[in-house]
């Protein structure tokens, strides 16, 4: 079985957020429930300022702190599913311990005050136990893996689009969207990335392009000191979490 990994090249990423919207629509997340967010950081002052951005999916850690703290084993890492970390919505009680334990801030509890008013959940209400039912809902659903639209009161997160990835041919080294044979199995954020800043493949296969890139371009994992050992690697000058203060706080009086 493959161990799925993602590589994000920050030298090519343009910060456009297509990954964010592709994910939102593929996984029917709510506005603001961005499983795949892009964070922006500003530093310095005119005329020598800098701005950086960091696309942030779930890191699908090899040693996930969220799994350690879950009291119901709703969140789990599945080695038979590429090492992806899932939330079983049949078991999750919405206690949010995992959200606190996650060093990367990539878990979401959407059953609260909406980011955008009027509440889209009231525009597209559900009658089948989901939080909401948009007319464009993806027909794929598997609550055991947190796929589909969640019931009220549970935590949600990126699944590496497992509903797509699970269909990949056995033994494939890379899920490259430019290969028509596999493009339908590529996670939405990777598939749509216009500058091709993202790659997806088998970290257990030394022949994979993701391993080649990690090797050649000195891939790094975020916050490695936590021991979480992400399956997401970053490439490029300054890859890592910028130490900047968020733009909205830096100059607070």
């Amino acid at each position, binding site marked *: 079985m493959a161990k799925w990994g993602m590589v994000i090249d920050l030298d090519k990423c343009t910060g456009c957020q297509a990954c964010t919207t592709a994910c939102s629509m593929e996984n029917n997340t709510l506005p603001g429930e961005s499983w795949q967010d892009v964070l922006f950081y500003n530093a310095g002052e005119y005329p020598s300022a800098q701005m950086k951005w960091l696309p942030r999916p779930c890191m699908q850690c090899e040693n996930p702190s969220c799994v350690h703290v879950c009291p119901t084993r709703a969140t789990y890492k599945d*080695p038979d599913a590429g090492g992806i970390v899932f939330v079983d919505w*049949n078991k999750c009680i919405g206690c949010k311990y995992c959200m606190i334990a996650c060093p990367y801030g990539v878990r979401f509890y959407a059953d609260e005050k909406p980011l955008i008013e009027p509440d889209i959940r009231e525009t597209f209400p559900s009658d089948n136990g989901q939080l909401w039912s948009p007319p464009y809902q993806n027909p794929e659903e598997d609550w055991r893996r947190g796929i589909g639209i969640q019931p009220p009161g549970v935590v949600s997160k990126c699944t590496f689009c497992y509903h797509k990835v699970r269909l990949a041919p056995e033994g494939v080294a890379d899920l490259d969207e430019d290969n028509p044979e596999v493009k339908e199995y590529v996670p939405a954020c990777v598939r749509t990335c216009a500058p091709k800043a993202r790659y997806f493949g088998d970290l257990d296969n030394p022949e994979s392009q993701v391993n080649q890139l990690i090797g050649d371009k000195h891939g790094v994992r975020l916050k490695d000191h936590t021991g979480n050992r992400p399956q997401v690697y970053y490439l490029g000058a300054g890859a890592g979490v910028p130490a900047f203060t968020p733009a909205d706080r830096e100059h607070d009086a």
Partner: protein
Amino acid sequence: MKLFQTLLNRRRFLQSSAAVGASAGAVTAGITGLTGLTLVEQARAQTPRGETVVTKNVCAQCPARCGIDVYTTDGSVHAIYGDTGNPIANGKLCPKGHLGSYFLYDPDRFKGPMKRTNPNKGRDEDPGFVPISWDEALDTVAERLNDLRRRGESHRFSMFYGRGWGASDAGMQGTFGQLYGTPNAAIGHSSMCADGSKKAKHATDGNNSYNSYDYRNTNYLLIIGASFLEAFRPYNNVMQMWGHMRSKSPKTRVTTVDVRMNPTMAASDRALYIKPGTDGAFALAIAHVILTEGLWDRDFVGDFTNPNLQFVAGRRVSPSVFNEKWVHGLADWWNEEVKDRTPEWAESVTSIKAADIRRTAVEFGSTRPAVALFERGATGHSNGTYNGMAIHSLNALVGSLFAEGGLGYQMGPSYGSLPADADDYLDDYARNGAWREQPRIDMKGTERWPMVGNMMQECAPNHLAGDPYKLDTAMFFYTNPIWSAPNPQVWEEALKDVFVIDTSPFPGETAMYADIVLPDSTYLERLQDIPTYPFEGWPMAALRVPAVEPIHDTKMYGDVIIELGKRIEGPTADYYRELDNIENVVRHLAAGFADDPGDNGVNDFETWREKGVWYKKPYQWRQIRGEFYEWDGQRYARQMSEEEVQQQLLKTPSGKFEFRSGYLEEHADYIEREMGIPRARAGLVQWVEPVHTGGDGDLHFVTPKTPLHAEGRGANIPHNIAIHQPIVGGRNTVYLEVHPQTAKERGIRNGDRVRITSDLGSIEAECRYVASHRADTLVLPFEYGHWAQGRWAKDRGPGNSSEITANVSDPISGLASYYTGKVRLERA
């Protein structure tokens, strides 16, 4: 309610029961929690899915025209991805593209045709719409038009369009006007869009068009005021090329010039902040250095007769000692303009350091191929055309026009003829009626605006003044000037006594003034042709194929025109009966592919429908080391004569790239009168001081588009609103971006509500400190401030920036000066 749900879940947790069907497989060591807690009857596992159909379509959220694959299962559209077979999309999309399902399922869409019952019009007036049948709606409009025609006042009917897609929608307006008898049948929004860049190219190389680009082979990009990584079209493809350029060998080097920090500036090798409206001065200094350092492309430009001669700052050269190749007026340009445009001079105008200008010029001039590109940042000012000409001149100096890795223009598709020729259906009124003596309502092509393509922003003031006349009836397609025009308050007044027909599927501001609504179908429901915008030069035309039948009682705009045409008296009706419907029109267009099959095998309507796009590479022409060649089927081998080059490529009076523009010289009197430029100098590519608008404000005000700006719809899409302005945390609104020093001087704290004031009035916004901007420039991304458009858009965010933007335009191109306003800032 929420609390109750949470309690339910807690209880579910306590009611431990055996896990069924869940292969939890939690293997991580050290877990001591409970296992297998679930309710059997609530456990939901994988569900089977119905059959999924993928249809070809074209995104409609910006001009780029990305081919999309629309995924529909059991009659519901649930995913949109880039079409792998479409040369613009290549399987990719920008952030807007995926949100397209929202257009189809927008809960605020009009459900069918309607008429107004409240005669009063205004922001706070409920139109009192009542549903009517399509027959009643079309009969009402036709009767009105026939009546105007009978009275000899058909010129008082105008048709406005914004985002036209091709022969099957906005492309039909011109013909309708010709048959019906109005000069106002196709008033486009181009003067509120980007006519400045087209006119700059028209004036220098004779092509009134945007460029095609060969980014794949470019080694240097000089980007000036173009928001390249946010809004430059085709945005999706531009980002694909960015990924390529920044990782190929050699890596494409990028210098970006802009008035503000943005993703393009941040991602470039060099970011240069410029004072708004001074881009031309920067470009002239770049040209100065290229010439004095001897870096120009001799094969394209030409050379001195004597190798010892050179351009020396401040010193004239004799035109007789320079042999020009494909340029016209170089020595003259040097003597009358460029010789004194030193980097030091430019620093005093632009605020960019002379050393940075010199470094950029040497890099740009010594890296081949190199491209200089620009958009509204440079052209949205009174001096916009001259700014653009100065920048485009750099492409001539380094020989990148029509070169590999350079830029060219766009070829059109091999369409078949329409089912009927409109010329055969003109009656005497259409040929000789009184309407033919009337100017357009926007005064395009008159002494007032002799060089423009359109002047939509003038229509409301002209109507109010009754000069040249009053409009009677106006139809709007994909445009909303009552909100988006500079000083749109005038439109709110003007449209009160005009019979307004809106065709948008959405309840926009225009619809609030509409007397009749003929709602278009959304793009996922339409069949229509989509020829490409300038892209890579070779011809291409995509096709929208409906993913679903219209889910409401809507009608595609092209079919509305046809049905309306069938109701016009005289031979006009016969013409539209021949067209019959849009599918018939599209089938006739596709017939042209039979003799010219696309590279992907598309040769008729059925294959076009299946593949979604017809295209044929390569671009027909290439300039190689100062000679022009035509493609002979194998390679660029057939050398072109000077006459052929003039006819096909450098379409200026001289057949060369003109540093002294023959086109502008034809209008020298106008330019002298309107701009105060001595007529003898009118043709020169030159520095002209911008005339800022807005009154005595001390701050520049710019209103750029973000990557999520979805042409009037972004404000009503919750997922768009949630991430609209990420660079400063704008996640539910759009903030005014202010340098902290500028704010603090005015006692404004981060997060304060502020008032932005020009001589037109004030709008309010929330301030966000951005230390990476210029202290003299306020940035407010253009999106919000709607008083209609739907439940999410209405009253969201800061005020509408257009309301404090004066209706002043570049006299040459007619482009509205959106980015040249001066304002004052204070706490609200």
